[in-house]
């Protein structure tokens, strides 16, 4: 269950310059004592709930704040204002293969990446074969990951991330991974996970897959919730506003 209450997220765009001596020196001569604070609100007062077993889709154009919202929910960022309440273990699939070390072999990376995702050693031991089987990389277990093709790396990462049965799943468009055969397989796996009664927060630009999966849709634009509600209706309105 996820409760998002009046969440706002502010970024300082000028933060890169904040401490530089060069900037201070320039300011000395330009007499601009008060630099304009360039702030950017990635999220403005966003509130909605995701009930247990609900599959909620997030739509909106690039830069609408979808990924930021996922990061706030998964705990990577703390919101500037508002509150996020999460009950249950989250499995964030925001970016696959976080923390892969190219110098380590596939086998070592399974353990490292698993640990980063919060798995225990026992759990990885018991699921090791399943991960390897799903990734179709048994022959490359002892090869350093830096020698993998990007498709192989993605396959491995996907297999590690989806081996759990999480209570809450956060997905940021990762269905299109690997070759056609693997794409079908991964899509099937995702469906299986989503339909297995987990709570899902799902970001995608593919309205087809949103319509397929989601029970509810939230439409974000410029950090604000434009509309939310029934999947089909919102998707159609969104499509019209973008194309028409």
């Amino acid at each position, binding site marked *: 269950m996820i409760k998002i209450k009046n969440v706002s997220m502010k*970024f*300082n765009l000028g*933060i890169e310059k904040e*401490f530089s001596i060069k900037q201070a020196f320039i300011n000395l001569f330009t007499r601009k004592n008060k630099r304009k604070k360039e702030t950017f609100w990635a999220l403005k007062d966003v509130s909605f709930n995701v009930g247990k077993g609900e599959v909620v889709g997030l739509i909106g154009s690039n830069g609408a704040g979808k990924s930021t919202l996922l990061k706030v929910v*998964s*705990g*990577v*960022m*703390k919101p500037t204002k508002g509150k996020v309440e999460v009950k249950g273990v*989250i499995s*964030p699939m*925001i*970016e696959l293969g*976080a*923390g892969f*070390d190219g*110098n*380590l072999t596939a086998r*070592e990376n399974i*353990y*490292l990446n698993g*640990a*980063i*995702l*919060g*798995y*225990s*050693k026992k759990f990885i031991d018991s699921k090791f074969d399943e991960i390897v089987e799903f990734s179709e990389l048994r022959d490359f277990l002892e090869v350093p990951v830096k020698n993998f093709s990007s498709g192989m790396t993605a396959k491995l990462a996907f297999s590690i991330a989806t081996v759990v049965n999480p209570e809450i799943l956060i997905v940021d468009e990762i269905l299109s991974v690997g070759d056609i055969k693997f794409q079908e397989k991964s899509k099937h796996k995702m469906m299986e996970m989503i339909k297995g009664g987990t709570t899902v927060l799902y970001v995608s630009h593919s309205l087809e897959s949103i319509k397929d999966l989601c029970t509810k849709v939230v439409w974000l634009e410029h950090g604000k919730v434009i509309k939310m509600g029934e999947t089909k209706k919102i998707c159609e309105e969104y499509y019209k506003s973008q194309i028409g």
Partner: protein
Amino acid sequence: MTKVKAIFGNFKRYRFLMTQLISRDFKVKYKRSVLGILWSLLNPILTMTVMAVVFSQMFRFKVEGVNYIVYLMTGIIMFNYFSAASNAGMTSVVENFPLINKVYIPKYIFPIAKCLFVGIDFLLTLIPWLAIIALSYVGLGQYTCHFNWYFLILPYIFLCMFLFTVGMSLILSCLSVFLRDVWHIYGIVLTLWNYLTPVFYSIEILPAKLQTLMHFNPMYQFLTAARSIVLYAQRPSFTTMGILGLIGVGTLAIGAFIFRKNQDKFIYYI
């Protein structure tokens, strides 16, 4: 109380990640080297030999009444641990930004993992160090050192130094997120600190004023306590041991406090 419990619960939960990070460091460090982990043993032996030759043969340094080689080595291994661990700990948070930006992980894990990783190297250097002490029985250096029961206090001293190092790493890694200049500044500070700590000289050669000031140098306290056991077979006073504990726990507490207060802001400075 519940806060303390939560912290320890977190520790348990992320213990596996900690071991994975440490073992990754080891694997990457010795990738493609023929001797592999043996270097962790060989490196300190070779460094010690070089240092011993340079300081006792070329510069003819001496400390009255004690085995100079053991005096020097005790200083070197302890200070090197502090300098290597705090340096690695300092850069660890920034280096793991790509990870911090994607997955939620308690950020304090990175500096602690680095201090532990360098700590394993430190434990390995104790083997050649003990060998040197043993060799003093058969005439290495002028004086003989004696193994004694007070050696059992050494783990306590090392532990205090470890806590002090973790505390420093937390402070430095936190600072360097906001101000990357810290990396460069600390490099110079470490060099200065190395010379201001009696690693290869004795405090007696300093002017009286500096000698008093020296007591405020934590590394001097750690070194002196260890040396009094190894070289003089004397137990450090309880006051000294209390002070060591206070330095360790105190620095760790300050580091943890600063880190905790600022860790949520890290994400904006990536």
